[in-house]
């Protein structure tokens, strides 16, 4: 594999990412399963990088999961999106930062639709005004939150505490990057590095000392499939697609999987558990799983935050093998404790977890 070829592509796809002052919208899946990732994203941007981010309690879901599972009409989701733009406009912002990859795809698709079909924009303006009395401006800049961490990866590196290097061997960690389908497959030019060789996660991983594994099924979907996961009887589809990826990455002995999409992070984590339960298959070293992290968690570890503050205890696959390799100290006794170190229950079969 020749890296120069990829660098050429990365050079060609440089999207515009605003430098400061963002209106932030949360993700349904990320705040449920990786709440600390959203918390640390804001903390890193505000406290470490000194940026202005507005976290508005008035916004809601974009309804994207419902939309892609076909229970939300296009008119409805356009108007919900328009309401978020109105909130942004009212708050005095013009840069829109999105935590969810599916939402990012939705915002991109709708703003593109409005360019091509201005009558849809007009209909939406009227519908929003009628239903909420609000008016909006289309954002000047729409970014996924991973774009922002990518943009400031160098500033984070300057404050780096832990490198993505195996402390024992001194070699770079071998990391799988999994970019959510809706990040760049819908509009390749809206993703850093494009759709085929996205650079958004690769850039962070390399900047912080790791090496990226390019494996044959790298581009394949995690298998969420919206209704294919939401309906219990269809989940075999979702599982089979993730399995296809695990089988393909296994020969490379990856140390971790990093995702920019909250759904992918969750599925690549949980499906390893299901495959271990149903087929007795594991994909990491010594019968363990491959730790799956969000890019915020990765940035947090790099900056030296406590793994349990970052929420790694919410993952089904244990992250400890990765922490050990990076030489990060942690207190196993405190993994499942509460805010004041009190006992708050713990997963029932942590022994059997991966």
């Amino acid at each position: 594999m020749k890296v120069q070829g990829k660098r050429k592509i990365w050079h060609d796809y440089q999207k515009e990412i605003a430098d400061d002052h963002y209106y932030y919208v949360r993700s349904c899946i990320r705040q449920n399963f990786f709440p600390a990732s959203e918390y640390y994203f804001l903390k890193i941007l505000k406290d470490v990088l000194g940026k202005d981010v507005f976290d508005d309690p008035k916004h809601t879901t974009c309804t994207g999961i419902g939309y892609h599972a076909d229970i939300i009409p296009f008119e409805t989701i356009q108007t919900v999106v328009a309401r978020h733009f109105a909130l942004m406009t009212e708050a005095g912002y013009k840069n829109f930062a999105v935590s969810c990859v599916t939402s990012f795809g939705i915002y991109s698709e709708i703003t593109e639709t409005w360019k091509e079909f201005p009558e849809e924009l007009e209909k939406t303006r009227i519908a929003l005004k009628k239903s909420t009395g609000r008016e909006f401006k289309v954002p000047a800049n729409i970014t996924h939150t991973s774009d922002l961490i990518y943009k400031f990866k160098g500033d984070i590196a300057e404050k780096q505490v832990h490198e993505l290097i195996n402390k024992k061997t001194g070699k770079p960690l071998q990391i799988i990057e999994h970019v959510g389908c809706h990040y760049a497959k819908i509009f390749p030019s809206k993703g850093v590095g494009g759709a085929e060789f996205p650079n958004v996660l690769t850039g962070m991983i390399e900047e912080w000392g790791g090496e990226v594994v390019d494996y044959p099924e790298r581009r394949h979907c995690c298998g969420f499939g919206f209704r294919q996961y939401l309906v219990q009887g269809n989940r075999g589809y979702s599982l089979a697609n993730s399995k296809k990826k695990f089988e393909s990455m296994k020969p490379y002995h990856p140390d971790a999987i990093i995702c920019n999409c909250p759904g992918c992070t969750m599925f690549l984590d949980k499906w390893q558990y299901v495959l271990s339960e149903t087929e007795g298959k594991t994909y990491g070293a010594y019968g363990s799983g491959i730790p799956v992290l969000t890019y915020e968690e990765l940035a947090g570890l790099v900056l030296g935050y406590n793994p349990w503050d970052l929420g790694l205890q919410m993952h089904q696959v244990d992250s400890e093998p990765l922490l050990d390799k990076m030489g990060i100290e942690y207190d196993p006794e405190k993994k499942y404790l509460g805010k004041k170190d009190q006992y708050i229950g713990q997963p029932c079969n942590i022994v059997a977890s991966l």
Partner: protein
Amino acid sequence: MKSLYNRLCEDVRFIEGIKACMNCGVCTAICPAAEFYDYDPRVIVNQVMQKDDTVIEGLLKSDTIWYCGQCMSCKTRCPRDNVPGLIISVLRKVSQELGYFTESKKGRQQLVVKRNVGDTILKYGYCVYPRTLKPELHPEQGPAWEWVYNHPHEVYERLNGNFEQEGAGTLRKTSPEVLGELKAIFDETGGTEFFEIIEKYSLEKAQKMGMATSDNNLDAYINHVQSQ
């Protein structure tokens, strides 16, 4: 009555999604659904392109249109700029509007999606919410999730969340005013009506299948369709 094809054309996503297919198969080659279901996006585009209402009606009543996982990988690759994923979205919309979705096993599952995601949106302001992710319905979420589910306040507090509280932050309580706005948008833009249509046709089907109770409880129907 207007033709089904014209009905599809009324949606801008259909116009955007359908150009002219040359049967190259690049969409099917990398389609996650084509690998695991008897599904071929290339064939769907060709069937729709025939503009034959009998063929389209067959699609709208079939399992086929419900296999797509909406990953949109097809959009990246199509050498003719078609978007099979968008065509599917419009077929699914029309199938539900006309009540055809209850004619297929996979289509009938839309009630499950509406009851889970749809109702959650209007109740909590988000598509997913810890209270609705019951471990017995989500065994794949594993013990870690079960722990979170059983101790949401403590776990989310530990992780600096704002679970069910006023103000900003993760999993904060969405205020009644905001939920009111969301509902007003749904009422204005056909979202509420769409939910009602799904409920109405599902009830009719459940009655026909003998799976509705006298007070129109559809639990048995839901249990049945989600395992199909």
